[in-house]
């Protein structure tokens, strides 16, 4: 056990003792069991136990045991939330979290010693962290009695996600499937084409690169009201905003990507007597792919933001941005958060899909070979 692990374990035990001492009469049976487990977890620190039964000790030292304590305690806390949160319950919540952290520390220490890629670590640990985010969000909003018009608890948002699926789907279709996909495809596609054209002329390239870089840094989202004036309220105006927002990052990245192939490789293609198009498709575009994917990833979040913000300036009565702005006015914050969850899910899914595609397309890149 490292010092950090000992510290975490000891702190959790203190919380367990505090909970037991202050709340022995008031705690629910489940919470008492949780406090008992936490204290039992603390007994592992004693050197006497380690000396007496080394076999049993090495079993209870495993990370799975910490995971068990943390989930039992977290479940007990969640079940007791609506009865009001006393200091003892908070102490158990904190102990549960400390044991969760301890489990992660131990798992990762084991993982560092083993070779190869471990899916439990790369997928389970972030999910576990997400669980604790939601847990404390729930505990704090309900336990402290925060009004739901300020911040609804995740359970309420989840219920809304399930009960209003039809509305959420319609909004998703309007904003994501129509505006975002169209604008994203047109913006990124045209930017790649323009970059390939511009790349043929050195003078143009020198002029456009700094200007493109400059425009990428601008608050382009400000053109949203203008585009709504020009292209009307429906998704076309949102797509137009996205085209402008995504064009310049893509153009700049493609331009730098097209000059990424090394002189040696170009010379090789010259000795093969490759023409301009051959060397473009066989060498320079593949070499530009890491840059292009970089821009695709940046643009995937930009596009969603562009569509939603543009909907604030005028929209038919459907769409994620429209729903957010009207439901805020009606104080239905759970609906707003459900829309945010949909948008975040769509954004994360696009980002994840792009990352997977990138791995397939640019498998030769050093950043993927080192694993």
């Amino acid at each position: 056990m490292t010092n950090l692990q000992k510290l975490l374990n000891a702190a959790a035990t203190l919380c367990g003792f505090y909970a037991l001492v202050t709340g022995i009469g008031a705690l629910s049976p489940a919470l008492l069991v949780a406090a008992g487990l936490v204290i039992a977890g603390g007994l592992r620190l004693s050197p006497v136990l380690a000396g007496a039964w080394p076999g049993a000790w090495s079993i209870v030292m495993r990370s799975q045991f910490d995971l068990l304590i943390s989930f039992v305690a977290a479940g007990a806390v969640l079940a007791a939330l609506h009865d009001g949160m006393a200091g003892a319950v908070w102490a158990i919540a904190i102990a549960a979290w400390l044991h969760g952290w301890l489990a992660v520390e131990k798992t990762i220490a084991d993982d560092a010693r083993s070779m190869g890629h471990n899916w439990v670590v790369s997928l389970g640990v972030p999910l576990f962290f997400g669980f604790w985010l939601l847990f404390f969000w729930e505990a704090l909003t309900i336990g402290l009695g925060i009004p739901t018009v300020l911040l609804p608890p995740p359970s309420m948002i989840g219920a809304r996600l399930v009960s209003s699926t039809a509305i959420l789907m319609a909004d998703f279709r309007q904003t994501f499937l129509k505006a975002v996909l169209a604008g994203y495809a047109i913006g990124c596609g045209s930017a790649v084409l323009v970059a390939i054209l511009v790349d043929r002329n050195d003078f143009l390239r020198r002029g456009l690169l700094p200007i493109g870089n400059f425009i990428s840094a601008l608050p382009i989202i400000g053109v949203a009201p203008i585009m709504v004036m020009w292209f009307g309220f429906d998704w076309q105006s949102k797509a137009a905003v996205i085209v402008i927002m995504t064009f310049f990052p893509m153009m700049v990245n493609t331009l730098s990507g097209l000059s990424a192939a090394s002189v040696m490789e170009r010379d090789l293609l010259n000795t093969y007597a490759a023409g301009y198009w051959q060397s473009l498709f066989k060498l320079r575009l593949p070499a530009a792919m890491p840059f292009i994917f970089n821009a695709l990833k940046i643009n995937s979040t930009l596009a969603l933001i562009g569509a939603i913000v543009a909907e604030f300036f005028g929209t038919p009565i459907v769409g994620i941005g429209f729903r957010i702005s009207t439901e805020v006015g009606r104080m239905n914050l759970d609906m707003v958060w459900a829309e945010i969850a949909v948008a975040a899910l769509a954004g994360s899914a696009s980002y994840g899909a792009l990352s997977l595609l990138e791995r397939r397309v640019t498998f030769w890149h050093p950043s993927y070979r080192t694993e």
Partner: protein
Amino acid sequence: MTETLKQKVLPVLTIVAAIGVIWYGFTVYLNAPWQIDQYEKSATEWSMNDLVRDTMAHDRPVLPAPHQVVVEIWKTTVQKKITSKRSLIYHSWITLSSTLLGFVMGTFTGMMLAIFIVENRAMDKSLMPWIITSQTVPILAIAPMIIVVLNAVGLSGLLPKALISTYLSFFPIAVGMVKGLRSPDPMLIDLMRTYNTSRWQLFFALRLPSSVPYLFTSMKIAIAISLVGAIVGELPTGAVAGLGARLLSGSYYGQTIQIWSALLTAATLAALLVIAVNIAAQITQRMMGVPK
């Protein structure tokens, strides 16, 4: 000198001039239908010259001509008192102050996160995916709601807008710093180990200095994105003050010239901020003795 002029300045100026010409072309093209309609209503004879002249003099054009925007900016900066509610300098200052506050908070948060991530593997595994996920939440899109909610809690004025900027700017800083803190050559790290350096000595003597170039590159992105955050954060405050408020009130009343002048001012502000970070980067690197 003439060489750099030819290689750098001339191409950029050519493109800028081309953009200007295209802009004027579109001004005439987009404003023409309304103008021709006017001519026909009043049954006046008109030539191409009249059309070009009149399309550039609308009060509320579809697309204002560049010189109209420049005149508007001139009127609202030089010819107005700075304290006036109509002065763009006053509005720029409002936006700039929340941009800078958000940028400073974001840089600090990003650096702290990066240090935790590099120094603790559990942090790396749990936090890094969520930092990336955090940016897929369209924060700019929910900025209005956040401002309203924070106002309800009693936070108003500068801080809510700055928090939006913080949320946006911590991300490039965190990602860049993590890359930078991990950038030292393994040989150098081994060398430090042979000197029997402690973890913190290794951090301050090797990791932190090698992360500085990465930090400044990230700061350039972060300060530009902070400005965007501040502008969007101003949209829901009911168009009180700031460049975002100018955009919104312009779009309510169809004052296109006002929208474009606010946009150009924001662009200038962004350029100045990035240049300022650039200068700071150069000074720091010179002080650290990095060769050019």
